[in-house]
């Protein structure tokens, strides 16, 4: 206990010295710190903050220090997160490398691969993208056809990926490729390569929200180094599934992050709908707001309970499937309710007639529709629960 208090006081001192002033303010759009070779730092203090945190391994606080991580225990990490919240520090780095690839590498990669890739993820030097879905392999992901042939001293990759988040901005890709065409799941391998390799092309896709975070990614005779195949040849599906779990946790976590949905939403409703005797004056909207708030409260308690159960050594089994399904549906309802509360002001597209918040509500509502599609659709999640948890027959 004393050691932890010592850690807290050292952490607090270090953060005081190293967290620049502008980093303790809300993050404006355009300053999102994704890192990588192509990063442009509109705020130099964001870069300074990343270097400081990455240098200590605190962008990945619980990864082993031999791979650049912070090497912290659960309790120490809890303190670090508390102290970061205390000073309202922005995240130093947002990274698919940390959320998705890193945990998979720690579990499945060989020593050289860990030493090569993990430290660069921690320091935000390399930005990763995920090459999973293909035009013909969405929910049926294992039907992927991107061909990967053994050419002796290298692999030759040909095919197409789709919905590759930020492929146009990423430095490297972790991709599922087909190394055996005679079998389905057992013919898939997990391969890493540089997006600057000749033959790689990423084309952004225009989405209904007006943004283009996803790309179509084409591979034409791409030569990948053989040392960058993770795990055993044709055993990539195991890694893929584990990584999907991390992805689902991340998505349901994001839904919650924005999904407090309570006081803010109620105040918004009072402002846009009207207030009488301290209540939202429209009874239907008031009921919708309270439903949202209560659902969010209840879901938060469920996340908390699962967390406590896993600490107590119990497991909830297919928990991540439930969270992905429930969290994303909750977030969609919340976004739908926000634009309803805002009325026509919540349906603006651009221009000075709308506030920044109003315009962002419109875009966020449209973006949220993808929550229940990406990372395994709601329907796939329900299938997984039916089969794995409830044991219902095929």
């Amino acid at each position, binding site marked *: 206990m004393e050691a932890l208090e010592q850690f807290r006081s050292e952490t607090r001192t270090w953060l005081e010295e190293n967290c620049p002033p502008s980093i303790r303010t809300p993050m404006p759009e355009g300053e999102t710190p994704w890192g990588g070779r192509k990063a442009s730092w509109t705020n130099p203090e964001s870069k300074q903050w990343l270097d400081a945190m990455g240098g200590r391994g605190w962008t990945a606080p619980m990864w082993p220090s031999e791979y650049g991580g912070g090497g912290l225990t659960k309790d120490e990490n809890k303190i670090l997160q508390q102290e970061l919240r205390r000073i309202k520090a922005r995240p130093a780095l947002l990274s698919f490398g940390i959320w998705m690839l890193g945990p998979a590498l720690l579990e499945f990669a060989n020593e050289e691969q860990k030493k090569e890739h993990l430290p660069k993820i921690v320091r935000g030097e390399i930005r990763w993208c995920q090459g999973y879905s293909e035009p013909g392999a969405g929910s049926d992901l294992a039907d992927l056809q991107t061909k990967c042939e053994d050419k002796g001293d290298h692999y030759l990759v040909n095919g197409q990926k789709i919905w590759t988040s930020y492929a146009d901005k990423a430095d490297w890709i972790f991709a599922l490729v087909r190394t055996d065409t005679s079998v389905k799941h057992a013919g898939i391998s997990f391969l890493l390569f540089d997006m600057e390799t000749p033959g790689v092309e990423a084309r952004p896709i225009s989405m209904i929200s007006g943004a283009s975070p996803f790309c179509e990614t084409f591979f034409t005779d791409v030569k990948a180094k053989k040392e960058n195949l993770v795990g055993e040849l044709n055993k990539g599906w195991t890694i893929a599934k584990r990584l999907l779990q991390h992805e689902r946790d991340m998505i349901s976590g994001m839904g919650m992050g924005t999904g407090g949905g*309570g*006081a803010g939403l*109620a*105040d918004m*409703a*009072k402002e846009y709908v009207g207030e009488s005797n*301290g*209540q*939202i004056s429209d009874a239907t909207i*008031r*009921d919708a*707001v*309270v*439903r949202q*708030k*209560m659902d969010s*409260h*209840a*879901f938060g*308690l*469920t996340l*908390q*309970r699962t967390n*406590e*159960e896993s600490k*107590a050594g*119990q497991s*909830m089994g297919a928990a991540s499937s*439930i969270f992905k*399904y*429930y969290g994303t549906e909750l977030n969609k309802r919340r976004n739908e309710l926000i634009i309803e509360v805002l009325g026509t002001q919540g349906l603006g597209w651009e221009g000075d007639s709308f506030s920044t918040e109003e315009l962002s509500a419109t875009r966020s509502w449209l973006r949220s529709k993808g929550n229940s599609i990406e990372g395994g659709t709601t*329907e796939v*999640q*329900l*299938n997984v*629960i*039916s089969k794995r*948890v*409830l*044991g*219902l*027959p*095929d």
Partner: protein
Amino acid sequence: MGLVLTEEQMLLKDTAAQFFQEKLPVANLRKLRDEKDATGFDRSVWKEMANLGFAGVLVSETYGGTEFGPVGLGIVLEQAGRTIAATPLLSTVLLGTTALQLGGTQTQRQEFLPRITTGDLILALAVEEGPHHNPTQIATTATASGDNFVLNGSKTFVLDGHIANYLVVVARTSGEVNASEGLTLFLINSADTKGLEVTRTLMADNHNAANITFKDVEVPATAVLGSVDGGWDILEPVLDFGRIGIAAELLGLIQEAFDQTLTYLKERQQFGVPIGSFQALKHRMAEMFAELEVCRSVVLDALNALEDRRNDIPSLASLAKARLSEASQHFTNECLQMHGGVGMTDEYDIGLFMKRARVAAATFGNAGFHRNRYAQLQGF
């Protein structure tokens, strides 16, 4: 307190589960119904429950109780919900005990708590006066007359009202008819009080309820529970505890209805395959499974709030009661539909779960009542 049960609580859960399955299975409720039992519950099993310590879960050891606390009682109620057992757990163990503990004098506690613990005394809370829960809308009056009070008015939907030895009656001693101020609680002996008329009401769920009228019922000032005009300070926390207790019971009910339906879907064959292989049913079951997990978290946290005497008990009570009222309606409707024709028969239990779910949902505020209350508590 966390959201994970302790070893002791797990043990209590197993004991309670086994007890209700063996001693008070659904068949027990059917028997009471079919034999038109006048008391509507099994007194000998109730004595056994008391011997196991279930009647004294909230009572301190000083008065012979087991002190398992709110989480302990919640665990027992959940298991009672699985067999929709008709017992005085709610009326006496939860509502009666809590009212006495919050408002009772030393003398009153000494007189009542030990006999509750032994299963010899049954209490009933007489609060409702109309078809919808409205605990401040009290028109029953209690007028001071010398050292006594005289009560006039009527109560409805008094749980276990016709078998109770004593009634905890909410009456108005001052104030407007819908004010929370001016209410007073009275402990009234239902056996030898003149002017009291108790009529059993037969409800769809075959659990006990009664209508009670008061015509110039004279009681001594010593019958006051708590302070004159200050009844709301006892009534509201008692009701909140009751709401959480019913939510715990409903959690057991929906779990059982869900489990029985899951088994049925794996067994029932149509088109040459188990109907549980159809996606139209699978997805609904998976959605209910997720809801069940959420319901469990809510009930556990509400029980913890009581256990730890947190200041967010009212919000949690409304969160739990609203959620479980609505979930129990949805679950029982869906489970009946998935059972098909046999779900409509009296032979299958699903219909009994549905009837109990509706009565429990209407008890101490339905989902709409509690959404409104939750919003008020949050300031919108």
